[in-house]
């Protein structure tokens, strides 16, 4: 296996809590974008502030986070984001394209 190979996904939300258009918000209603990176070992997701007019994300505006270690938690049920040393992850993410 090549543990460095990653897959990226993203999902938009109109608000921090579930509401009627949370599943499929129109572009102008998007306030938050959840960016995920995943590999063999984990899925890491940051829900960040998003501006639908400029298509810009605000990396310092964190609305939520998820981290699942897949060896122990393949179903992604135990979110250990709050246990994480975020400075290490942010350093890694800075190195991504």
């Amino acid at each position, binding site marked *: *296996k*090549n543990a460095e*190979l*990653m*897959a*990226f*996904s*993203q*999902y*938009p*939300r109109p*608000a*921090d*809590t*579930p*509401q*009627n*258009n*949370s*599943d*499929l*918000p*129109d*572009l102008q209603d*998007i306030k*938050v*974008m*959840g960016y*995920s990176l*995943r*590999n*063999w070992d984990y*899925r890491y*997701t940051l*829900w960040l502030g998003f501006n639908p007019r400029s*298509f810009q994300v605000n990396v310092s505006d964190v*609305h*939520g*986070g*998820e981290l699942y270690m897949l060896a122990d938690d393949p*179903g*992604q*049920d*135990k*979110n*250990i*984001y*709050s246990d994480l040393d975020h400075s290490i992850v942010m350093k890694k993410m800075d190195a991504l*394209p």
Partner: protein
Amino acid sequence: REKRNVLFIIADDLRASLGCYDDALAKSPNIDQLASRSQVFLNAYAQQAVCAPSRTSMLTSRRPDTTRLYDFNSYWRVHSGNYTTLPQHFKSKGYYTMSVGKVFHPGIASNHTDDYPYSWSIPAYHPSSFRFEKQKMCKGDDGQLHANLLCAVNVTEQPGGTLPDLESTDEAVRLLKSRVGDGAFFLAVGFHKPHIPFRIPQEYLSLYPLDKMTLAPDPDVPELLPPVAYNPWTDVRQREDVQKLNVSFPYGPIPKDFQLRIRQHYYAAVSYMDAQVGRLLSTLDALGLTDSTMVVFTSDHGWSLGEHGEWAKYSNFDVATRVPLIMFVPGVTAAYSRAGGPTFPFIDVFSQPEHSFTNAKVIRNTVELVDVFPTVSYMAGLPAPEHCPDVSLQVELCTEGRNLVHTFQHKERG
């Protein structure tokens, strides 16, 4: 390199619930048979778990932040950039390109034309019976017709005596017959199932008796899930039979007996779609096209079958983003067929329900749907697009994925 035809099959909302992905419950003998001659990517992921953004991303090989399509409401050529699509690339190289069913997301997202004429040599075909899909077509216990989620039907009683995926398969078979000996083709076939509503032939339910069905192993909303990550599956809630359950918004839950029935219907829809794949593949055999046609099978994204208390795509969970990805390349993933011997005989799941196969080759490393464009292009005999620069809004042909050709040539390390 010789040019191969391409049969590109895309299912709608199909998670990796297939026999060839080690799902012990799923009965998918025709797709499993395809996998037995193919390279199977076990860890393939969509870029966004909803139809239009995912399909546009895959077919342009650009991520949603480059297509700038996160909903259903814009056409990438005018909204972000005039990006070349996978079928357009083949068309520009002399292929005859055809679209049947749901390949691009219909409507504004593909300019109300399925991106014709850029992508296709002829206008895209859509099954006429699809217009009934969201109408009251499902007979309830009261004998009346309802717009239900669970909608197993007697096909002979449906308008025209057919269903959309049956019609699409008929049309695809007709197009394949028309292309024999007539130059290279790229035929994309988009099946509508297992997308909701589960309007499927009722006989497929018998493959999944309710007493054999189980709930999701983790049917509750995880305690530490941030609320922003949860989706309230509003499309499921809108169906008449679900409304009657009076499920609380946004967290549910759905009653357990109904959860079992949703899972039963989803799997039955998978088997129904598998049968249509079998009809397509056996047609390749019958027409002598198997040795000259690359077959790609995938989905736009997955679907949560109750995991995390969700019944939908619309999330970043693996059950919503992971997809099947299978590539058959004649002479590469399998030897050319023996003279006269079929490679993909149709397997009737009702008469051979326990049929099993072993995948020809599996790739465990992580791949993405943006990788499909360069990989299919190269394996079919065309040049793969170059990797995109950091900002590619003005670049018509490039990829934000990887060309996975090396996975066909070398074993995975480790």
